[in-house]
């Protein structure tokens, strides 16, 4: 994996690691934006934050305007109140896999106070209760406070709760981290923006806000940037584990970028989708279709803006998304980058128009 130079005086670090260690719930994406600004500032010609927080990076001055979008926000919890005993009540932010929450280590608030997600003790439950998935309203976060007053000093209602999952390489190919949905997309987009300019393109890299709560940042960006076409780069579910058969697997880890057919918010623009598949076949890039038709991506927010914007989603397979820890394959990430570069090249050369 390519290491990017973070600039003089800063220790070498991997961008993907830094992106996944940054914490950004929907509507409060400042940390991820700061990481991207630090890595891209001074290298890409134009960089600005729009009114609702999207970070927009323009590369090139060509006539064909292309949005590539990746979202900065991640799923997590929000503090809802304090119990008399000093525990924090929480609500969900974004669609969480609530089955896997109890017992997880978390970080609370901007100061990132460590805590643990707690649930009623297992010895108190009868057999039926023990098998039940606990809804988030029955869970709490324990920060070691011994009274309501102590808890109120740690966090106020509305404060974010992030998963405390560290970035690790599990093997030479597979990485583990929180928020790979969609920091893999942010990573790929940052790399695309550092490519040499393409003469005929204006590449509009949009790091969006509020994807997990309704594809909201992307809609605003598409409205004011007015692109000819748009691509969303996202992390998608890979359920290639025992007991699951295609198409329920959705995607397989290590089999390359997943070209989306449709999701709950958009039927992908057919000509872009076919062109992507054609490019992958001609250039020998591994690829797969995303086999599920549910959920949503920024492409769905973008395509209905203005007078309609052709859009398609390319996704990196990730196991265990919307949970505290997810896995991605570095080869999948590189192949997704390759496929997007091929698409931009073909647009630059005028070989494809949507």
């Amino acid at each position, binding site marked *: 994996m390519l290491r990017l130079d973070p600039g003089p005086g800063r220790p070498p670090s991997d961008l993907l690691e830094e992106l996944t260690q940054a914490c950004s719930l*929907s*509507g409060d994406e400042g940390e991820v934006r700061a990481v991207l600004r630090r890595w891209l500032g001074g290298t890409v010609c134009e960089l600005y934050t729009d*009114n*609702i927080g999207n970070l927009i990076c323009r590369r090139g001055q060509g006539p064909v305007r292309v949005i590539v979008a990746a979202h900065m926000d991640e799923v997590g919890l929000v503090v*809802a109140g304090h119990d008399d005993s000093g525990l924090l009540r929480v609500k969900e932010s974004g669609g969480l896999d609530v089955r896997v929450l109890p017992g997880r280590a978390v970080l609370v608030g901007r100061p990132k106070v460590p805590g643990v997600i707690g649930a009623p003790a297992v010895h108190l439950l009868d057999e039926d209760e023990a098998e039940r998935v606990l809804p988030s*309203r029955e869970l709490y976060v324990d920060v070691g406070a011994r009274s309501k007053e102590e808890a109120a000093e740690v966090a106020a*209602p*509305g404060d974010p709760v992030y998963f405390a999952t560290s970035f690790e390489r599990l093997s030479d190919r597979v990485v583990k981290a929180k928020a790979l949905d969609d920091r893999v997309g942010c990573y790929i987009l940052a790399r695309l923006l550092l490519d040499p300019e393409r003469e005929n393109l204006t590449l509009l890299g949009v790091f969006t806000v509020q994807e997990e*709560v*309704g594809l909201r940042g992307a809609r605003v960006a598409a409205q004011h940037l007015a692109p000819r076409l748009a691509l969303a780069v996202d992390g998608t579910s890979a359920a290639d584990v025992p007991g699951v058969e295609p198409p329920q697997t959705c995607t397989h880890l290590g089999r390359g970028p997943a070209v989306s057919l449709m999701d709950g918010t958009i039927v992908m623009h057919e000509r872009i989708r076919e062109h992507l598949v054609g490019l992958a076949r001609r250039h020998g890039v591994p690829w797969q279709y995303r086999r599920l038709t549910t959920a949503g991506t920024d492409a769905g927010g973008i395509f209905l803006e203005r007078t309609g914007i052709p859009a398609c989603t390319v996704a990196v397979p990730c196991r265990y998304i919307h949970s505290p820890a997810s896995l991605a394959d570095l080869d999948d990430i590189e192949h997704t980058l390759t496929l997007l570069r091929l698409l931009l090249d073909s647009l630059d050369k005028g070989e494809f128009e949507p």
Partner: protein
Amino acid sequence: MRETLERLCAAWGPSGREEAVAAEVSALLGPVAAVRTDPLGNVIATLRTVAGSGSPAGVPQAAGQGPGPAGPRPRVMLCAHLDQPSLLVTEVTRDGFLRFSPVGHLDPLYLPGQRVVNREGTVGVVVAEDGLVPKDLGPGKLAIDLGVSGREAAERLSAVGDVFCPAAGVLALGDLLSGPALDDRAGCAVLVETARRLVSAGCPNPVDLVFSVQGAIGPRGARPAAHGLGPALALVVDLAPARGVGKSESTVEVGKGPALRVKEPGYVAPPRVRQLLIEAARAAGLPYQVEVVAPEAATSDAGGVELAGSGVVTGVIGLPARLQRGLTPAVSLADLESTVRLLVELLSRPLDRTAPWVTG
């Protein structure tokens, strides 16, 4: 303010037919603002403030990209919706009852027994089908009884397409005021009162008030209004469901000050806006509370305003309301007063054009 509130609550105004409420609001604001009505029926009032005397911005503009701190101050939009939930007549039965479809959030649990009235003043009462058991309750099992028999008699008073609203008025209920139109006439009254005080105190910022149409069925009127105004900051004032009897998901209580909303379906508040409001509340020694997640039924105009134009930094100030599920929400005049003071405190200081509305 109570007089303003009662006057606004007396007006009949279902979604899409807000003219009577719009006329009241326009009359109330005439002395302090340049008032106009846009093509959708939104009332847009530009306050006669020190900075707002010019014509409002006609095109959406990006915040923070205009002139520097010496340039014009950022425009601020305050928003409340004019309309109230209502019943749309979909069939006149052979027996002379009116079948209806709810427009806006009306919980069928609270409908039977409710007195309703149409624009012409025809009164009806919502009734449930004979022998209906509570578990089968739904809008399809209810009808409006006009007290007449037979289709012909009923059609002299109403017709398919006619609209009924819960009967107007405000009831003094202990420390609270209760009435079907308080959602969101309470917000409208807060805006009117804020406008009066800002203008008499002298406000250094340009302020537009938007009284939106169709806010009870989604952010329909507010989004295009915000698109046209292009504000740097928008604040939506709407009701926040407060704790009632029994177990409650709500973190809000009546009488404890304006509720600063964190999120609702389709909208998340930028933390910076909440911080701005908290700082203003503390500076003025006003009570406030934080509303973490508003339920579907309390979805405000914010989700639409935020997406207008090049995007608008938007906050929601909730007026705590008990009985929100019923047709007669109840609010505390003290909470309304604190909300007015909060807005006056925030807007009577010059807002910094270069302020980091969005962090980073």
